[in-house]
């Protein structure tokens, strides 16, 4: 119950801020002829897709197609980001100096160079060697990027678990891996949900950078549509709103998960 009420209030405040800004912009700002009526067809339209496919039907418009691709990219890189992050987080705490060194080097390298540069390097350099598609290169770049941050979050999460938990597990005969899997990680992951959520919300927004390698995500489709129609503000407002839908759903989902997992506290 509180879940619905709280998210409704948040939504209402957001809508209020946007409406106010929009009102001042329209009435006191520059002269601009609005064409909001052109936006819906960029989301969905009824008609035939092309000459090859003449049967009319309900199809996704360019922005919706971009939305779907952004969603795909974000989901895939979130999953790989978590996998990489867990491995790196554990490696950062390894007793083995080489493992520790490599994982630290990875984290430092990725965190201290711009994502945009990483995307270019992975797409143009690694991508042309391995013949990667733009989608694979883009999601790989985002996964590797997210993995470094998630790794640090996971490491901090593991370190925050009292060492008695590992000792108790090991004294029962569990191996290090079993103790990690059944005892330490479940507790650590629960504790790091809030920073992880922040990280993945950032990831959704950062995914807009893959538009530079001609991946037709929502940002790319938006830019193209603007270039075609000059409905600059309508389109970018819509793009922002579509990002907001994704990020806001994610934060609501994590709040829900957090509350569900608080049972054992």
């Amino acid at each position: 119950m509180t879940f619905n009420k709280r998210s409704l209030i948040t939504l209402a405040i957001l809508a209020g801020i946007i409406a106010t800004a929009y009102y001042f912009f329209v009435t006191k700002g520059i002269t601009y002829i609005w064409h909001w009526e052109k936006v819906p067809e960029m989301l969905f339209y009824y008609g035939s897709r092309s000459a090859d496919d003449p049967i009319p039907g309900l199809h996704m418009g360019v922005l919706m197609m971009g939305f779907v691709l952004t969603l795909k990219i974000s989901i895939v890189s979130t999953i790989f980001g978590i996998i990489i992050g867990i491995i790196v987080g554990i490696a950062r705490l390894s007793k083995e100096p080489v493992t520790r060194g490599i994982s630290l080097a990875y984290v430092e390298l990725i965190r201290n160079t711009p994502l945009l540069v990483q995307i270019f390097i992975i797409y143009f350099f690694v991508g042309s060697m391995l013949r990667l598609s733009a989608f694979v290169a883009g999601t790989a770049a985002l996964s590797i990027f997210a993995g470094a941050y998630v790794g640090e979050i996971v490491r901090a999460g593991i370190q925050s678990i009292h060492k008695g938990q590992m000792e108790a597990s090991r004294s029962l005969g569990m191996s290090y891996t079993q103790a990690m899997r059944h005892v330490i990680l479940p507790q650590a992951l629960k504790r790091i949900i809030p920073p992880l959520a922040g990280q993945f919300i950032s990831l959704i927004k950062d995914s807009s950078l893959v538009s530079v390698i001609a991946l037709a995500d929502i940002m790319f489709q938006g830019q193209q549509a603007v270039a075609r129609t000059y409905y600059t503000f309508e389109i970018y407002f819509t793009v922002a709103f579509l990002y907001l839908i994704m990020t806001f759903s994610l934060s609501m989902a994590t709040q829900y998960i957090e509350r569900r997992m608080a049972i054992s506290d």
Partner: protein
Amino acid sequence: MIKVNNAYKTYSTHDRREVKALVDFSTHIKKGEVVVIIGPSGSGKSTFLRCLNRLEEIDSGEILINGVDIYGKKVNINKVREDIGMVFQLFNLFPHKTVIENITLAQKIVRKRNREEALEIARDLLNKVGILEKEKNYPSQLSGGQQQRVAIARALAMHPKIMMFDEATSALDPEMIGEVLDVMKKLAREGMTMAVVTHEMGFAREVSDRVVFMDGGKIVEEGTAEHFFTNPIHERTKLFLSQIL
């Protein structure tokens, strides 16, 4: 059952002080024997226990458990630990698991028992420690005494041959110490081999076969509990006992 020969262990504290936790330490614990280890803080008694299952490692010397050198190269330490139950001062229950899951987890993944078997053993033990009705609760919903009893049940579920208690009652409110000690006494009377670090001299007097007084990583004096109550020999022992009794 447990044989320690000339063990040395030094560790450094956070402020880089070197502490000699075990100095040429040798002892022998027989099957079914209940040994109580007492001594001032920093005397090495917890370290001694923790070296017995290699939560900490001795620097030199040897420790034999059932004739197996547990520091040997080919030893699978996880196998060794299956036979040595350990109970900690701060319980260390798994907070994300219910009481019953705490007791079945290691049974399933270490002893490879199936669900039903693990549950049956767990319920038996919960009954034994007197908190069967709490099986679906989480540790945070239990009192300290109840948590420690669950921790004992968790260790016993592995059917260990040796049980170690590292100040198992030190973190408890006074009125809960009794319920935990009762479980430990029951265990001792059933013939379990036990190494117990504690300051509960009442426990020592009732069930221990031998009391070991440690200071500076060495055994200063050992004997029956009666001996410690009536005529301790060393000045250091007398001083310590005068403070805790």
